[in-house]
């Protein structure tokens, strides 16, 4: 496609540089990592609510046998979108929200390495969410499960809608469009993840405050670092598979079509080679959060910091060698099944190290039972259950019975909900005062926690039993007399208890917004440098970039000599890639400062930009082009491509910071 955008000839861009500091345009054009973090959190929480409503509909449908509330077609779309929404549009971006907001603060930097790329990541993520949900108006939402196995994704659920030729055409068109929304929606979301993973890796490697060696990084930053590498390598794998799927369903290739020499098992390998690291992409941020929260409220350093770092790396590394445990029943043969069974067993070792080290952190402390601590301990307790049921999956012959049953549904909800979501709420309660300057109400927070803990276990605990009792996954109905009625009803009740707990949380947000207790810089007596600046932090984060001389820098500044045991002395010095005399911002070699920095003329911050949002907007438009046909297709592809290219050109030709404020 030959696209010639009217590019600016000078370094003045096509648009006047945005200058708004308040109002909606300041948010649309922001490159401030903190604002982007807040946008990520709010958007992801919105999708979390959407995915939750989908879950409630699923649970209502299954509350009794032979229920007719939802049709098979509606149910299949709902369970597919529940999975896709929670994974790609709620949990991953909630993790990204924490990465964005905290990473520069935790390493004493003023922003991420590539602020506009950061904004681009957010807008691409949002456009992916809008794109995939736009399918609801255009023939339906994806309905093949989040795993979307071939060749069902090619053939469709209803191969011979036999009533009339017109209906066959409609059913086929709907099926193709649903798969287009699946494959392109996730490709767009993957671009967002790739861009942010590069950004975080570069930021951590290059922008640490002087003295912050890798082994002095806050553990949450380590989790960010490891998760970013997982995203960097996992997203291309699914990207290739999605690209091939898009061509199979829309343009008639046959990568996964067994009728034409393709292989549906290839899709499974590629999907799970991405899909299993993806599980760790979802859980490691929560591990990082809880590893920050437990030490602060136990008033002790993280037990076995080095072991925690290396177990993160070990989990991430082993996570690449276990994908076929999702395919034990696929018939790969005894050698492959034995190998992947063994590798799956041994991933339990570094995971166990984490759990015991968290226990060691609590042990002997003076534990303040605040809401973040409760959610953190909740993660340790609930994730342990998910981890143990995970070990039972590695027993391959017994897995032949459990796979694709509600036992597996129970397992991964104990990991994803009992692990990730509990951890993300621990982080939300913990860092909320830093972000807003106000403390969330602790009593409402505890009510939220207990309701959620009870509702969670009432919902997902009985699923173990139903799975052992032979209830398969992904069924929109079940017969009476299978012995499943009682526990299904209980689970539905549990789901509404979870919903009530979320309502309490939203009420807490609303109340705090009006009359929350002011937090001050360091309300929790915390240990890491993000608590050294004001709450909320100024947009340049730190007046002075802190010199780091220890892990738990802030604690050592507060307590040196004050504790019953003097802190361990770490030789002061710079990380090898830093000149200790240089501030982090100087590394960016930005000669100018942006607008609105009066009083801090020496702090150079990147300027806001229109281009990330323009480039991101082109992606769903091109995507709708693939959905459409004929001239509309060409027009939309051209428009989308033009927007992407002009956004990227404008971005490249625009200086990252404006020279005249």
């Amino acid at each position, binding site marked *: 496609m030959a696209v010639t955008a009217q590019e600016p000839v000078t370094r003045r861009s096509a648009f006047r540089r945005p200058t708004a500091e308040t109002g909606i345009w300041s948010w649309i054009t922001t490159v401030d990592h903190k604002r982007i973090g807040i946008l990520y959190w709010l958007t992801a929480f919105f999708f979390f609510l959407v995915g939750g409503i989908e879950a409630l509909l699923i649970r209502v449908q299954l509350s009794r046998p032979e229920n007719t509330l939802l049709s*098979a077609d509606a149910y299949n779309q709902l369970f597919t979108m529940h999975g896709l929404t929670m994974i790609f549009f709620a949990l991953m971006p909630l993790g990204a929200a924490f990465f964005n907001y905290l990473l520069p603060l935790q390493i004493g930097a003023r922003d991420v390495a590539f602020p506009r790329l950061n904004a681009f990541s957010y807008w691409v993520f949002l456009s992916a969410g809008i794109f995939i949900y736009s399918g609801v108006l255009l023939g339906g939402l994806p309905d093949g499960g989040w795993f979307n*196995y071939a*060749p069902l994704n090619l053939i469709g659920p*209803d191969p*011979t809608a036999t009533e009339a030729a017109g209906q066959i055409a409609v059913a086929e068109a709907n099926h193709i469009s649903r798969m287009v929304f699946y494959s392109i929606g996730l490709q767009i979301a993957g671009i967002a993840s790739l861009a942010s993973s590069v950004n975080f890796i570069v930021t951590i490697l290059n922008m640490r405050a002087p003295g912050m060696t890798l082994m002095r990084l806050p553990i949450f930053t380590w989790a960010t670092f490891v998760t970013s590498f997982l995203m960097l390598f996992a997203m291309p794998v699914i990207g290739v598979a999605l690209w091939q799927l898009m061509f199979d369903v829309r343009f008639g290739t046959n990568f996964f079509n*067994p*009728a034409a020499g393709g292989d549906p098992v290839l899709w499974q390998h590629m999907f799970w080679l991405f899909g299993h690291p993806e599980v760790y992409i979802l859980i490691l941020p929560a591990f990082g959060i809880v590893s920050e929260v437990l030490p602060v409220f136990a*008033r*002790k350093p993280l037990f*076995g*910091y080095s*072991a925690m770092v290396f177990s993160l790396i070990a989990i991430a590394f082993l996570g690449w060698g276990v994908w076929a445990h999702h395919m034990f029943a696929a*018939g790969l043969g*005894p050698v492959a099944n*034995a190998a992947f069974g063994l590798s799956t*067993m*041994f991933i*339990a070792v570094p995971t*166990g*190290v984490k*759990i*015991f*080290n968290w226990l*060691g952190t*609590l042990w*002997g*402390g*003076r534990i303040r*039972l605040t809401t973040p601590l409760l959610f953190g*301990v909740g993660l340790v307790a609930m994730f*342990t259950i998910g981890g*143990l049921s995970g*070990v*039972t999956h*590695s027993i*391959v*012959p017994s897995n*032949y*019975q459990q*796979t*694709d049953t509600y036992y597996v549904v129970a397992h991964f909800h104990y990991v994803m909900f009992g692990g990730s979501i509990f951890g993300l709420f621990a982080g939300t309660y913990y860092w909320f005062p830093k972000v807003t300057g106000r403390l969330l109400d602790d009593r409402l927070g505890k009510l939220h926690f207990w309701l959620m803990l009870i509702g969670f276990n009432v919902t997902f605990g009985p699923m173990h*039993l139903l799975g*052992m*009792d*032979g*209830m*398969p996954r992904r*069924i929109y*109905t079940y*017969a*009476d*007399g*299978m*012995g499943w*009625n*009682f526990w299904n009803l209980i689970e539905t009740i549990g789901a509404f208890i979870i919903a009530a707990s979320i309502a309490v949380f939203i009420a807490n947000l609303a109340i705090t917004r009006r009359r929350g207790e002011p937090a001050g810089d360091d309300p929790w007596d915390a240990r890491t440098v993000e608590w050294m600046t004001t709450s909320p932090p100024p947009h340049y984060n730190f007046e002075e970039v802190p010199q780091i001389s220890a892990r738990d820098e802030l604690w050592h500044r507060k307590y040196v000599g004050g*504790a*019953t*045991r003097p802190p*361990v002395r770490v030789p002061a010095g710079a990380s090898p890639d830093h000149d200790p005399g240089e501030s982090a911002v100087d590394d960016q070699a930005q000669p100018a400062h942006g607008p609105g920095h009066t009083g801090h003329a020496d702090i150079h911050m990147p300027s806001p930009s229109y281009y990330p949002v323009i480039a991101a907007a082109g992606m769903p438009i091109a995507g709708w082009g693939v959905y459409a046909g004929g001239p509309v297709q060409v027009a939309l592809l051209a428009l989308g491509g033009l927007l992407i290219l002009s956004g990227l050109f404008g971005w490249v030709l625009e200086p990252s910071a404006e020279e005249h404020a």
Partner: protein
Amino acid sequence: MRARRPRGAARSARRGVWSWAAIALSGLLLAGCQTDHPQNTLTPQGPVADLQQNLWYVVFVIAVVVFILVQGLILYAVFRFRDRGDDDQSIPKQVAGNTRLEIMWTIIPAIILAAIAVPTVKTIFDLAAVPSDALQVRVIGKQYWWEFEYTGEEGQGVVTANELHIPVDRPVYLTMESLGQQPTDPTGVIHSFWVPKLAGKQDVVPGHQRTMTIEASEPGKYEGTCAEFCGLSHANMRFAVVAEETADFEAWIQSQTEPAASPTGGLAARGEQLFTERTCIACHAITGYEGGDEARVGPDLTHFQQREKFAGYILENNPENLTAWLKNPQAVKPGSQMPNLQLSDADVDALVAYLRTLE
């Protein structure tokens, strides 16, 4: 409530040392006063399911011990070391780790897992072995029902659907494929063959051939289901394995080789005529009927009345259900390949009458 065949009074003596755990778990499963659990994995009825079950109990018991240990330690730590809000504002000792402890809790789990790995790997290979003297059955998964074709010496060529008859105490070796409409049509999707009381799952993958062994120790009807999401009516793709004493099985398979008898008159004869006129015969084989042997799009109906249920083993085989099915198959089983032929009530009655004669 459905009536079910009574099971043999004598349960298999093959109960491991873990039977107490089975009792405890079954107790939980039985909550709600539902006594029938046709797909319970905790009550295996054959050697394959037993092997899989035994391993589960090993790891289950270890998991329960670890669960109690960890949860107990968490609760103890949180209560024992909680801030009591008293005047003592001293900062606890800043312990940053303990190498010996950390090595211990790295190595001990690794040793436990290595110990579990040995029987696991052995069982994987045992289950993959091809049994000798097995009954040979070809299994074909379709959207959304199962076809069974006997390919060994016994009952060669017998084709049935959704109810697989097998003899007890003899391994049955299944050769499995997924197909589209005709036996040569490769446009199937992935299904998974699962009879919980007899064996774990085996996916049936289009373009590939998969095999598995099942065996029943007791006569009885063992319910199964497709366990891999296969489309709109995945939930309606159920089936059963009927295990019989050898003599009963041989009698059954002999009966299957008999052609269907033509009805002598009345409504059923009109139904037989409609079966051809309305092109039912194009998809459903009725052996012995002219031109009807090769059609295998839908289930073979030669001995339809011998089946307890139909339409993917979801409907009791009775005139009311047959009537509802023939009038609008998609309403009963969404996505079914059975078309709505817009039959009149009289035609439906005649067809039902004819189907009722197919003993």
